Protein backbone atom coordinates (compact mmCIF):
# COMPACT_ATOMS: atom_id res chain seq x y z
CA UNK A 1 0.00 0.00 0.00
CA UNK A 2 2.73 2.41 1.01
CA UNK A 3 4.65 1.53 -2.14
CA UNK A 4 1.59 2.06 -4.34
CA UNK A 5 0.95 5.50 -2.83
CA UNK A 6 4.60 6.37 -3.34
CA UNK A 7 4.57 5.37 -7.02
CA UNK A 8 1.40 7.35 -7.80
CA UNK A 9 2.62 10.44 -5.93
CA UNK A 10 6.09 10.22 -7.42
CA UNK A 11 4.57 10.27 -10.91
CA UNK A 12 2.40 13.29 -10.01
CA UNK A 13 5.37 15.10 -8.47
CA UNK A 14 7.64 14.50 -11.45
CA UNK A 15 4.94 15.36 -13.99
CA UNK A 16 4.21 18.59 -12.13
CA UNK A 17 7.90 19.46 -11.92
CA UNK A 18 8.37 18.92 -15.66
CA UNK A 19 5.24 20.99 -16.21
CA UNK A 20 6.75 23.89 -14.24
CA UNK A 21 9.91 23.84 -16.33
CA UNK A 22 8.33 23.25 -19.75
CA UNK A 23 5.12 25.34 -19.62
CA UNK A 24 5.01 28.23 -22.05
CA UNK A 25 2.37 29.97 -19.98
CA UNK A 26 3.48 31.04 -16.44
CA UNK A 27 -0.04 30.38 -15.10
CA UNK A 28 0.18 26.77 -16.25
CA UNK A 29 3.59 26.55 -14.59
CA UNK A 30 2.06 27.77 -11.31
CA UNK A 31 -0.75 25.21 -11.53
CA UNK A 32 1.78 22.44 -12.23
CA UNK A 33 3.62 23.63 -9.12
CA UNK A 34 0.39 23.06 -7.14
CA UNK A 35 0.29 19.45 -8.39
CA UNK A 36 3.88 18.91 -7.31
CA UNK A 37 3.32 20.44 -3.88
CA UNK A 38 0.19 18.35 -3.29
CA UNK A 39 2.08 15.22 -4.30
CA UNK A 40 4.81 16.06 -1.80
CA UNK A 41 2.18 16.67 0.90
CA UNK A 42 0.83 13.15 0.35
CA UNK A 43 4.39 11.79 0.44
CA UNK A 44 4.85 13.54 3.81
CA UNK A 45 1.74 11.72 5.04
CA UNK A 46 3.18 8.49 3.70
CA UNK A 47 6.34 9.15 5.72
CA UNK A 48 4.34 9.75 8.88
CA UNK A 49 4.79 13.53 9.00
CA UNK A 50 1.15 14.52 9.39
CA UNK A 51 1.74 18.06 10.63
CA UNK A 52 4.12 18.82 7.76
CA UNK A 53 1.61 17.55 5.22
CA UNK A 54 -1.01 19.97 6.53
CA UNK A 55 1.46 22.87 6.71
CA UNK A 56 2.64 22.05 3.19
CA UNK A 57 -0.90 22.43 1.84
CA UNK A 58 -1.70 25.54 3.87
CA UNK A 59 1.58 27.42 3.45
CA UNK A 60 2.71 26.36 -0.01
CA UNK A 61 -0.45 25.85 -2.02
CA UNK A 62 -2.55 28.14 0.13
CA UNK A 63 -0.20 31.07 0.46
CA UNK A 64 2.90 30.91 -1.71
CA UNK A 65 1.33 29.75 -4.98
CA UNK A 66 -1.59 32.13 -4.52
CA UNK A 67 0.92 34.94 -3.96
CA UNK A 68 2.78 33.96 -7.15
CA UNK A 69 -0.49 33.79 -9.13
CA UNK A 70 -1.54 37.14 -7.68
CA UNK A 71 1.67 38.79 -8.88
CA UNK A 72 1.26 37.07 -12.27
CA UNK A 73 -2.18 38.60 -12.66
CA UNK A 74 -1.05 41.96 -11.26
CA UNK A 75 1.73 42.23 -13.81
CA UNK A 76 -0.37 40.79 -16.62
CA UNK A 77 2.39 38.52 -17.86
CA UNK A 78 -0.01 35.63 -18.39
CA UNK A 79 0.56 35.35 -22.14
CA UNK A 80 2.60 32.58 -23.68
CA UNK A 81 6.30 33.18 -24.02
CA UNK A 82 8.50 31.97 -26.82
CA UNK A 83 10.45 29.04 -25.49
CA UNK A 84 12.17 28.33 -28.81
CA UNK A 85 14.30 31.46 -28.57
CA UNK A 86 17.66 30.62 -27.06
CA UNK A 87 19.51 33.86 -26.34
CA UNK A 88 22.68 32.27 -25.02
CA UNK A 89 24.17 29.69 -27.37
CA UNK A 90 24.39 26.26 -25.78
CA UNK A 91 22.65 27.32 -22.57
CA UNK A 92 19.97 24.62 -22.78
CA UNK A 93 22.37 21.78 -23.48
CA UNK A 94 24.73 22.90 -20.74
CA UNK A 95 21.87 23.29 -18.26
CA UNK A 96 20.51 19.82 -19.01
CA UNK A 97 24.04 18.44 -18.74
CA UNK A 98 24.48 20.08 -15.33
CA UNK A 99 21.11 18.71 -14.24
CA UNK A 100 21.97 15.18 -15.38
CA UNK A 101 25.34 15.38 -13.64
CA UNK A 102 23.71 16.59 -10.42
CA UNK A 103 21.01 13.92 -10.44
CA UNK A 104 23.49 11.25 -11.52
CA UNK A 105 25.94 12.07 -8.75
CA UNK A 106 23.30 12.00 -6.02
CA UNK A 107 21.65 8.88 -7.43
CA UNK A 108 25.03 7.16 -7.60
CA UNK A 109 25.60 7.90 -3.91
CA UNK A 110 22.15 6.57 -3.03
CA UNK A 111 22.33 3.45 -5.20
CA UNK A 112 25.92 2.53 -4.37
CA UNK A 113 25.66 3.47 -0.70
CA UNK A 114 22.27 1.81 -0.07
CA UNK A 115 21.35 2.36 3.59
CA UNK A 116 24.94 3.36 4.39
CA UNK A 117 24.34 6.54 2.37
CA UNK A 118 22.70 7.99 5.46
CA UNK A 119 25.16 8.34 8.31
CA UNK A 120 24.79 9.81 11.75
CA UNK A 121 23.58 8.93 15.20
CA UNK A 122 20.13 7.38 15.47
CA UNK A 123 17.54 9.27 17.51
CA UNK A 124 20.00 12.01 18.47
CA UNK A 125 17.33 14.46 19.64
CA UNK A 126 14.09 12.50 20.00
CA UNK A 127 12.91 9.24 18.48
CA UNK A 128 9.73 9.32 16.43
CA UNK A 129 7.17 7.76 18.69
CA UNK A 130 3.94 6.30 17.29
CA UNK A 131 2.15 6.80 20.61
CA UNK A 132 2.82 10.56 20.92
CA UNK A 133 1.16 12.89 18.43
CA UNK A 134 3.40 14.19 15.67
CA UNK A 135 2.58 17.83 16.47
CA UNK A 136 3.42 17.35 20.16
CA UNK A 137 6.86 16.00 19.36
CA UNK A 138 7.65 18.73 16.85
CA UNK A 139 6.39 21.44 19.17
CA UNK A 140 8.45 20.15 22.06
CA UNK A 141 11.63 20.09 19.98
CA UNK A 142 10.92 23.55 18.53
CA UNK A 143 10.62 25.10 21.97
CA UNK A 144 13.51 23.26 23.62
CA UNK A 145 16.35 22.18 21.30
CA UNK A 146 15.55 24.62 18.51
CA UNK A 147 14.28 27.59 20.52
CA UNK A 148 17.12 29.87 19.40
CA UNK A 149 16.65 29.29 15.65
CA UNK A 150 12.92 29.69 16.22
CA UNK A 151 13.45 33.16 17.67
CA UNK A 152 15.75 34.01 14.78
CA UNK A 153 13.03 33.13 12.24
CA UNK A 154 10.81 35.73 13.91
CA UNK A 155 13.44 38.33 13.07
CA UNK A 156 13.82 36.96 9.55
CA UNK A 157 10.10 37.22 8.85
CA UNK A 158 9.95 40.76 10.24
CA UNK A 159 12.85 41.82 8.03
CA UNK A 160 11.19 40.14 5.02
CA UNK A 161 7.93 42.01 5.59
CA UNK A 162 9.68 45.36 6.04
CA UNK A 163 11.81 44.67 2.96
CA UNK A 164 8.79 43.81 0.85
CA UNK A 165 7.02 47.01 1.90
CA UNK A 166 10.10 49.12 1.14
CA UNK A 167 10.69 47.43 -2.21
CA UNK A 168 7.12 47.67 -3.44
CA UNK A 169 6.63 51.30 -2.43
CA UNK A 170 5.95 53.38 -5.51
CA UNK A 171 8.83 55.79 -6.00
CA UNK A 172 7.98 59.43 -6.75
CA UNK A 173 10.27 59.81 -9.76
CA UNK A 174 9.65 56.62 -11.68
CA UNK A 175 12.10 56.47 -14.56
CA UNK A 176 12.78 53.62 -16.96
CA UNK A 177 16.22 52.20 -16.33
CA UNK A 178 18.53 53.89 -18.87
CA UNK A 179 20.91 51.98 -21.06
CA UNK A 180 24.34 52.30 -19.43
CA UNK A 181 26.89 53.70 -21.87
CA UNK A 182 29.66 51.44 -20.67
CA UNK A 183 27.78 48.36 -21.86
CA UNK A 184 26.93 49.60 -25.36
CA UNK A 185 30.55 50.59 -25.70
CA UNK A 186 31.51 47.05 -24.90
CA UNK A 187 29.51 45.95 -27.91
CA UNK A 188 26.51 44.49 -26.09
CA UNK A 189 23.13 44.41 -27.76
CA UNK A 190 20.82 47.12 -26.49
CA UNK A 191 18.32 46.14 -23.84
CA UNK A 192 14.77 45.39 -24.89
CA UNK A 193 13.21 48.81 -25.27
CA UNK A 194 9.82 49.75 -23.92
CA UNK A 195 7.45 50.69 -26.76
CA UNK A 196 6.30 54.24 -26.08
CA UNK A 197 2.60 53.78 -26.86
CA UNK A 198 2.39 50.44 -25.05
CA UNK A 199 3.59 51.88 -21.73
CA UNK A 200 0.87 51.35 -19.18
Amino acid at each position, binding site marked *: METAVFIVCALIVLAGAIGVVMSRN*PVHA*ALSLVATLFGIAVLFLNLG*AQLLAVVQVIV*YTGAIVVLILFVLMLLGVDED*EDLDAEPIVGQRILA*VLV*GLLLAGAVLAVIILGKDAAVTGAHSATEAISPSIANIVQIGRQLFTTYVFPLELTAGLLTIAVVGAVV*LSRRPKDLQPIPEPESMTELGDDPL*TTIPEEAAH
Partner: protein
Amino acid sequence: MSPNLPLAYLALSAILFAIGGVGLLVRRNPLVMIMCVELMLNAVNLTFVTFGKMLDDISGQVIVFFVMVVAAAEVVIGLALIVAMARRRPEANADDLRLLRG
Protein backbone atom coordinates in the same frame (compact mmCIF):
# COMPACT_ATOMS: atom_id res chain seq x y z
CA MET B 1 6.53 -2.15 2.83
CA SER B 2 9.59 -2.84 0.76
CA PRO B 3 12.81 -2.25 2.71
CA ASN B 4 14.27 0.16 0.16
CA LEU B 5 11.38 2.60 0.01
CA PRO B 6 13.31 5.37 1.88
CA LEU B 7 16.00 5.14 -0.79
CA ALA B 8 13.30 5.58 -3.42
CA TYR B 9 12.24 8.79 -1.65
CA LEU B 10 15.82 10.02 -1.73
CA ALA B 11 16.09 9.18 -5.44
CA LEU B 12 12.82 11.01 -6.16
CA SER B 13 13.98 14.13 -4.37
CA ALA B 14 17.33 14.01 -6.18
CA ILE B 15 15.52 13.96 -9.53
CA LEU B 16 13.14 16.70 -8.39
CA PHE B 17 16.09 18.85 -7.29
CA ALA B 18 17.78 18.36 -10.67
CA ILE B 19 14.60 19.27 -12.58
CA GLY B 20 14.27 22.44 -10.49
CA GLY B 21 17.91 23.30 -11.11
CA VAL B 22 17.58 22.83 -14.86
CA GLY B 23 14.47 25.01 -14.86
CA LEU B 24 16.29 27.72 -12.92
CA LEU B 25 19.10 27.69 -15.47
CA VAL B 26 16.92 27.51 -18.58
CA ARG B 27 13.89 29.71 -17.92
CA ARG B 28 14.13 33.48 -18.28
CA ASN B 29 10.85 34.56 -16.73
CA PRO B 30 11.74 35.57 -13.14
CA LEU B 31 8.42 34.26 -11.80
CA VAL B 32 9.02 30.81 -13.27
CA MET B 33 12.54 30.94 -11.86
CA ILE B 34 11.07 31.51 -8.37
CA MET B 35 8.79 28.51 -8.90
CA CYS B 36 11.84 26.41 -9.81
CA VAL B 37 13.55 27.49 -6.59
CA GLU B 38 10.42 26.31 -4.76
CA LEU B 39 10.76 22.94 -6.48
CA MET B 40 14.35 22.63 -5.29
CA LEU B 41 13.41 23.62 -1.72
CA ASN B 42 10.64 21.03 -1.71
CA ALA B 43 13.03 18.35 -2.89
CA VAL B 44 15.27 19.23 0.06
CA ASN B 45 12.28 19.10 2.43
CA LEU B 46 11.42 15.62 1.21
CA THR B 47 15.01 14.55 1.78
CA PHE B 48 14.97 15.92 5.34
CA VAL B 49 11.78 14.06 6.24
CA THR B 50 13.15 10.85 4.73
CA PHE B 51 16.42 11.22 6.67
CA GLY B 52 14.39 11.81 9.81
CA LYS B 53 12.52 8.57 9.20
CA MET B 54 15.67 6.60 8.36
CA LEU B 55 17.48 7.83 11.49
CA ASP B 56 14.31 7.66 13.60
CA ASP B 57 14.66 11.28 14.66
CA ILE B 58 12.02 14.01 14.83
CA SER B 59 14.60 16.71 14.00
CA GLY B 60 14.25 15.95 10.30
CA GLN B 61 10.70 17.27 10.45
CA VAL B 62 11.59 20.25 12.65
CA ILE B 63 14.22 21.43 10.15
CA VAL B 64 11.60 21.39 7.38
CA PHE B 65 9.74 24.10 9.31
CA PHE B 66 12.75 26.38 9.15
CA VAL B 67 13.17 25.65 5.43
CA MET B 68 9.53 26.59 4.90
CA VAL B 69 9.99 29.87 6.77
CA VAL B 70 13.02 30.74 4.65
CA ALA B 71 11.11 29.78 1.49
CA ALA B 72 8.22 32.06 2.46
CA ALA B 73 10.58 34.98 3.13
CA GLU B 74 12.38 34.31 -0.14
CA VAL B 75 9.14 34.34 -2.14
CA VAL B 76 7.99 37.57 -0.50
CA ILE B 77 11.24 39.39 -1.27
CA GLY B 78 11.53 37.86 -4.74
CA LEU B 79 8.03 38.89 -5.73
CA ALA B 80 8.57 42.40 -4.35
CA LEU B 81 11.71 42.66 -6.48
CA ILE B 82 9.80 41.44 -9.55
CA VAL B 83 7.01 43.97 -8.98
CA ALA B 84 9.52 46.79 -8.50
CA MET B 85 11.33 45.69 -11.67
CA ALA B 86 8.15 45.32 -13.73
CA ARG B 87 7.15 48.91 -12.89
CA ARG B 88 10.19 50.14 -14.76
CA ARG B 89 10.35 47.52 -17.53
CA PRO B 90 7.07 45.65 -17.94
CA GLU B 91 8.39 43.17 -20.51
CA ALA B 92 11.79 42.52 -18.94
CA ASN B 93 13.06 39.00 -18.41
CA ALA B 94 16.07 37.82 -16.44
CA ASP B 95 18.43 38.42 -19.35
CA ASP B 96 17.50 42.10 -19.45
CA LEU B 97 18.53 42.68 -15.86
CA ARG B 98 22.16 43.16 -16.71
CA LEU B 99 22.54 46.41 -14.83
CA LEU B 100 23.46 44.49 -11.72
CA ARG B 101 26.64 43.56 -13.54
CA GLY B 102 27.91 47.05 -12.83
